[in-house]
Every structure is written in structure tokens, then in C-alpha cells.
């Protein structure tokens, strides 16, 4: 079974970096911006994941021959 691991590392990296930015901003007392950055990071990851989930559903559809529906 072949799995492309790049996406995992990408999401993990985005998570780590967002957390770091959050920490840095929180340290200087810009809590509001820190929250916003976290939110943006979350949304970006969500978009990536949804993109791939859509692929997954397409695959399932094709497996069960539901293409026409």
C-alpha cells in the first residue's frame, strides 16, 4: 500500500508553525492577533483536509459504481 506522506508532514508543519507564531504573539501581549493566527492556521488545514476528503468520497463512489448518481 502506497501512501503519500507529504501531506501529513505538511499539515504537521503548518500546525507547529502556527503554534509557534501563536506563542510569540502571545508573549508580547497581542492575544487577539494570536487567536486570529490560530484560526487562520486551522482554516487552512481544514481546507487541505476537505480537499482530500472529497477525493476519498469520489473514490468510494467509483468503487460502488455510483458514478451515475
Amino acid at each position, binding site marked *: 500500500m502506497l501512501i503519500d506522506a*507529504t501531506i501529513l508532514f*505538511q499539515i504537521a*508543519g*503548518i500546525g507547529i*508553525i*502556527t503554534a*509557534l*507564531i501563536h506563542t*510569540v*504573539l502571545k*508573549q*508580547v*501581549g497581542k492575544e487577539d492577533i494570536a487567536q486570529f493566527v490560530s484560526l487562520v492556521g486551522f482554516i*487552512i488545514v481544514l481546507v487541505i483536509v476537505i480537499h482530500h476528503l472529497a477525493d476519498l468520497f469520489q473514490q468510494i463512489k467509483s468503487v460502488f459504481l455510483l458514478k451515475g448518481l
Partner: protein
Amino acid sequence: MKWFGALLLIATTTYIGFDMSNRLSERTKQIRQFILSLQMLEAEMEYSQLTLQQIFQTIGKKTSYPINSFYSHLAEQFDFVVIDFLDVWDRELDKLITVSALKKNELEIMKQFGRNLGQHTFIQQQKHITLAIHHLQQELDEANDQRVKYEKMMKSLGILIGLFIVLLLF
């Protein structure tokens, strides 16, 4: 090629971050220079009683980069007939703000100071100088606070945002 582009991107954002943090520390230095120059102006007025042009020349020689060009340009302007000193002063200040890290507040203080330069007796003039120095000192304190607070943040944010964008595009 991909890696090269990623490195370039990170280098750019890192540079931007360092530049912004540099700007913060430059601002405190330049305000300090301005305060120093006003003190020199006061001393020159009191003891040597030179003309404004000569005073500006000596101050221009004694201060460092962005401030000295301001004063030497002012001195140069006096080579021609100056109809409206205020106009010259404001124009030079506007020029200064484009090359220095100074902000609008300092500019406004100096513009206000220019309104009173050469309009009064020495004692009153001295009061105006002290007032301007006082205002600048306040700006300096504020700039110092900001520098301590944001200098490190700018540096790390530069690198982090670079990494973030690279990861997004990967």
C-alpha cells in the same frame, strides 16, 4: 529548483523581519540624536551667538547620518534667499521622514518647534527648546518600550511566516 525557491522565500521574509526590528532600534537612536541636536542648538544660541545657518552647519557636522543631512540641507537652503523659513523647515522635515525611521509624532513635534524658531527672545526660545526636548523625551520612552517589546517578535515572526508560506506552497 523547488528548494531554491523555498530558501529564497524564507531568506526574504527573514530579511524583512530583521529590517523591521532594525527600524525600531533605529528610531530610538534617531530620536536621541534629535534631542542632542536641540541641546546643541540651545548651547550654540546661548554662547556663540552665530547665525542660524552657521549653527545648522555645526550641528550637521556633529550629528550622525539621517539627522546630519537634515541640518546640512537646512544650512544649504540659507545660501539662497529664504522668504519663508517655516516652508523650508517643513519641507526638509518631510524629506527627512522618508529616509529615517522617525514617525509622524516626532515630525509633528519638530514642525511645531519650527513655528517658534527665531520668533522670540532668547529666554522664550530656550523655553520652547526645553518643551520640544521634553516632548521628544516622551516619544523616546515610548519608542524604547516598543523596541523592547517588539524587536524580538519581528525577528522570529519573519522567519516563521517564511516557513509557513513555504509549507503552504509545498
